């Protein structure tokens, strides 16, 4: 079923269509929220809030390719609000990132799957060490695949800033990862 048709059914109150809508976007929203918060349970709460907001504003959901950037923007804003509130209260210890990423890789052979989870966990942890703007640019551009213009609109900075920051952010991330031994994760893991 194409997306505009699905959205039309959701707007008419079709419960099955709404379930399909949630399943279509939940991993994406949760992934983004997890990289922002680094806390699985916080990310689940935020993801649920995002879907409640979408459900309450179905008239505003863009029909076509604008939908995903719109959902990403809502998720990002919810995460930023959450992080501002959380500054007062330091986060509790969470499930190690590698285990979070191990949950998804069941179709590969176990060894390769584990290695992949280790690499993902490393990148996730290295992202937490970047400056806020650099982390957001990596999250939105390299992970979510948004265009420079879409990112500039979300972050309210000029397109040129996103472009010049993007390379610096990638270099900073690579330097953190080589310090953490990403390349050596091929051998041992």
């Amino acid at each position: 079923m194409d997306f505009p048709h699905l959205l039309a059914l959701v707007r008419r109150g079709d419960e099955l269509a709404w379930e399909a809508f949630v399943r279509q976007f939940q991993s994406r929203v949760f992934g983004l929220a997890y990289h922002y918060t680094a806390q699985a349970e916080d990310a689940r709460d935020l993801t649920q809030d995002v879907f409640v907001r979408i459900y309450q504003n179905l008239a505003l959901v863009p029909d076509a390719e604008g939908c995903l950037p719109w959902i990403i923007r809502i998720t990002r804003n919810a995460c930023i609000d959450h992080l501002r509130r959380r500054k007062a209260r330091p986060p509790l210890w969470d499930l190690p990132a590698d285990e979070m990423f191990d949950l998804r890789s069941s179709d590969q052979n176990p060894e390769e799957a584990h290695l992949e989870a280790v690499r993902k966990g490393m990148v996730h942890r290295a992202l937490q060490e970047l400056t806020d703007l650099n982390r957001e640019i990596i999250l939105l551009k390299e992970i979510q695949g948004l265009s420079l213009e879409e990112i500039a609109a979300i972050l309210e900075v000029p397109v040129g800033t996103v472009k010049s920051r993007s390379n610096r952010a990638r270099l900073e991330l690579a330097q953190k990862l080589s310090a953490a031994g990403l390349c050596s994760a091929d051998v041992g893991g």
Partner: protein
Amino acid sequence: MNDFHENPNPHIAPPLGPEAALDLTRSILARTSGSPCQRLQDLACAFVDGELEADQSTLVRAHLDHCDACAALVKTLTQTQAVLPNLVELDPGPWFTQRVLRATVHLPPRPAFDLGRAWKQLMHRPRIALEAAYLGAAASLMGVYLPLPLPHLAAKVPALVQPLTQPLGASAQRIAGQVVQAEQRTTASLEAFPLRPRNARSLWQRLSARFKTKIQSFRKAEPRAPKNSAEGKKAPPANP
């Protein structure tokens, strides 16, 4: 890059502890601060993305063949770029969808179109006052200059529009003032250059002819005439 090869211990084992990791970062930064390495850092992302010109790409490859630090950086960048897109989705757990559906089942979805909401959004437009002022000015122009079908209504329009633009504030009045000035300028220039019949002489032709006769009469009156035509204009014309 030669400095690098003079280093007695170029091969460092993969570090494990955080201190060793920090050492490696420092050593990478120390080794990549030379100018060819700095230049390579500027190009590294474009190189990994395959966006470099062939010539530049060859130069980068040549540097990488001789600089382990930059080669390690490019390798890490390449691996990172391969991992990043795979982080886009993450499973929130098997019961998560049910949890969202439970949270939304009692919420009535908003209707596709809500008049009150649409009005609120319209009123939240940051330039609503300016837009209203423009609309008011445009309406006054149309009211005054377009031939309305009802003449008695057309006569009333300026009187109706004026009190409307007054309470909109200083900026609206300024805009309305500018519109009135523009109208006056347009009217004046239209009156100065009336439409002429096809074969009539243009304004320019008439002006230049009048100017020529004045110059000629001036020359007749004073043989050593001033070169400036403006002074010539001021001189008392001696009409032939």
